[in-house]
């Protein structure tokens, strides 16, 4: 680090303002070792020099009694000017009364006349210049230039100040996120994106101008706020919405806000923000309700999810994740024939007991951990198919789930291929289920991957067909081998005409595509009859069996072997 005050050729400039030449020269001589002194004999001349854009002064040494424009007048002008107020001012005086007046006007220090201690004067000049320069560095680090809001570090510091000096104040923590902000950048350009962020900062400052309000933009499209408690967030954010659209000319900019009201001061700042963020992330994608409030229940769900995320590796290692199998029966003939099975995961947690897949699958789909689970299931299922094959002499293909995140994994084909090889299976013995929601994400990528997998011999099943919004469009562009209809329709078909029609429609589509259709969630004989009558090929559901452990499943295989032998005899 350079020693302060010595900066090579560019020495700091100090303006000495005094009507008495001798005083100017004496001070100049005192500081000349370190600084470049410049002189003005009154306030007016000083102001001229200060307003010269080619000059930057590090300090003003100011006499008070001067003709034309005196020191008080000049000091007042310096302190009311945004630029000039960044220059420290030391007043030279021999009168106590003048000290009080000048400190009110914004003087930083005093030098008593006559100047008997040059060393002290020099040290005071150094100190005040250093103080201002440090302050300037701090200030430039304090604000985010794009939004005019604080940076994260200063946001925290100011919260600490409120905690310390206004500990009784009722405060709320807020997290605001602009949804799909990258789309704003893509559609309108980067500079428009920056403009939107700038406007958000400006509008927030204006809307909460009547509150104690601290805000920062910690990264990209997230805004954190710390606000004295208020009850009108609905109204305020409705205004935020309309003002943002008006200023940016973008009709709809979606955002969501999480609010943690009446923050618990015993929580760390991080925890307060985390609570608000949790509420914010909870409203993701729900455009009807941009504001969400943090609650204890929300927190408990979050803690539970944290626990699951934390425990997943151990669960895989300890084999607490158990793959269950649900049979699928071909009902096209007189007697149902075991055709294949679907692998379904269950988590038997050593402390939490059986955990419903509904608790952890959507969670892991969101955070990408689903890939670990998928890999585990693929390996387990392939091994199981092989075991059954060896033990009973017949092949029962198993369907496994291929999640969205797997589709984008460049290693997908290699992994599947080696799993199949390791277990001496053919690729059509491990069937791959994909959901139509993957199509909505990136249709092109999905089609490409599906084509490659089919090229390798894998059979692709379209899961939950009919539940998404892109079904019809998708089905004409994506090559598949089996259509699985959404179990909602089956569940309601015997009491709801519309669902029945949907089932018919899906079966017709499958016929048109010349692929078999699987009905999931079939529970009773009447459903089986209806589906059979409509021409459904395969049935899966409690009517035949709930998902069972591999050992139990073997009974279905033994039964199938028996049936086949019988059929052969005939």
């Amino acid at each position, binding site marked *: 680090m350079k020693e302060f005050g010595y900066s090579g050729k560019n020495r700091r400039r100090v303006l000495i303002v*005094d*009507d*008495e*030449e*001798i*005083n100017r*020269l*004496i001070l100049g*001589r*005192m500081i000349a070792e370190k600084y470049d002194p410049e002189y003005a004999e009154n306030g007016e001349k000083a102001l001229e020099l200060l307003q010269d854009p080619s000059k930057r002064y590090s300090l003003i040494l100011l*006499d008070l*009694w001067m*003709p034309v424009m005196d020191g008080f007048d000049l000091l007042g002008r310096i302190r009311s000017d945004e630029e000039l107020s960044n220059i420290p001012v030391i007043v030279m005086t*021999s009168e106590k009364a003048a000290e009080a007046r000048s400190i009110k006007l914004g003087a930083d220090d005093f030098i008593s*006349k*006559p*100047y*008997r*201690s*040059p060393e002290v004067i020099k040290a005071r000049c150094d100190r005040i210049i250093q103080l201002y320069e440090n302050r300037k560095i701090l200030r430039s680090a304090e604000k985010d230039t794009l939004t005019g809001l604080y940076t994260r570090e200063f946001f925290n510091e100011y919260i600490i100040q409120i905690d310390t000096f206004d500990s009784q104040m009722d405060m709320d923590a807020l997290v605001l996120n602009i949804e799909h902000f990258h789309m704003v950048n893509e559609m309108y350009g980067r500079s428009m994106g920056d403009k939107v962020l700038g406007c958000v900062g400006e509008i927030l400052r204006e809307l909460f101008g009547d509150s104690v309000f601290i805000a920062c933009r910690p990264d990209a499209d997230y805004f954190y706020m710390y606000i004295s408690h208020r009850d009108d967030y609905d109204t305020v954010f409705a205004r935020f919405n309309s003002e943002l659209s008006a200023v940016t000319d973008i009709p709809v900019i979606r955002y969501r806000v999480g609010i943690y009201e009446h923050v618990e001061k015993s929580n760390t700042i991080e925890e307060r923000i985390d609570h608000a963020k949790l509420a914010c992330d909870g409203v993701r994608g729900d455009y009807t309700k941009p504001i969400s409030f943090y609650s204890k229940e929300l927190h408990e769900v979050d803690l539970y999810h944290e626990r699951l995320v934390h425990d997943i590796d151990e669960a895989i290692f300890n084999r607490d994740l158990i793959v269950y199998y649900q049979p699928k029966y071909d009902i096209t003939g007189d007697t149902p024939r075991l055709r294949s099975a679907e692998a379904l995961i269950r988590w038997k947690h050593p402390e939490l007991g059986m955990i419903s897949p509904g608790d952890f699958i959507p969670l892991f789909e969101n955070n990408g951990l689903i890939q670990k689970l998928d890999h585990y299931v693929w390996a387990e299922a392939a091994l199981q198919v092989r075991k059954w094959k060896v033990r009973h002499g017949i092949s029962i293909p198993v369907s496994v789930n291929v999640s969205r995140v797997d589709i984008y994994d460049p290693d997908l084909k290699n992994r599947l291929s080696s799993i199949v090889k390791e277990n001496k299976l053919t690729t059509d013995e491990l069937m791959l289920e994909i959901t139509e929601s993957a199509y909505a994400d990136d249709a092109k990528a999905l089609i490409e991957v599906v084509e490659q997998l089919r090229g390798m011999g894998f059979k692709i099943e379209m899961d939950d067909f009919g539940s998404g919004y892109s079904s019809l469009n998708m089905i004409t562009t994506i090559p598949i081998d089996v259509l699985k209809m959404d179990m909602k329709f089956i569940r309601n078909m015997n009491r709801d005409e519309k669902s029945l029609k949907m089932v018919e429609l899906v079966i017709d589509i499958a016929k048109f595509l010349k692929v078999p259709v699987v009905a999931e969630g079939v529970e009773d004989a009447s459903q089986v009859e209806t589906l059979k009558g409509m021409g459904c090929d395969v049935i899966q559901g409690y009517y035949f069996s709930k998902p069972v452990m591999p050992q139990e499943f073997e009974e279905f295989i033994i039964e199938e072997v028996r049936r086949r032998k019988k059929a052969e005899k005939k």
Partner: protein
Amino acid sequence: MFDLEALRRFGANVEDGLNTCVNNEEFYLKMVRKAVADASFDRLEKAVEGKDLDEAFEAAHALKGALGNLAITPILEPVVEMTEHLRGREDMDYGPYLKTILDKKKELEEIVNADV
């Protein structure tokens, strides 16, 4: 010859003055030369004659600062006293102060110009 000793004989507090001038003798003597030629002496004289107390105060105040820094005590002392009276714009006869100041200034002028 105009030197520190001559100033000392005149009654200046040379140590203080020199200290203020960062112990640079040449610079100190140069500043003393400037002081005797200071226009504020004329301003003060004219202001007192014209009874312009505001102007007189400004001039006296300016002289006080410069003479104080140079520690030219014999002139500084009457200037300081006069400045305080003028600060309150006291209606009094400033003639005797002015005379002392100008006499002492003349005396110093002679010392300063002794070697010229």
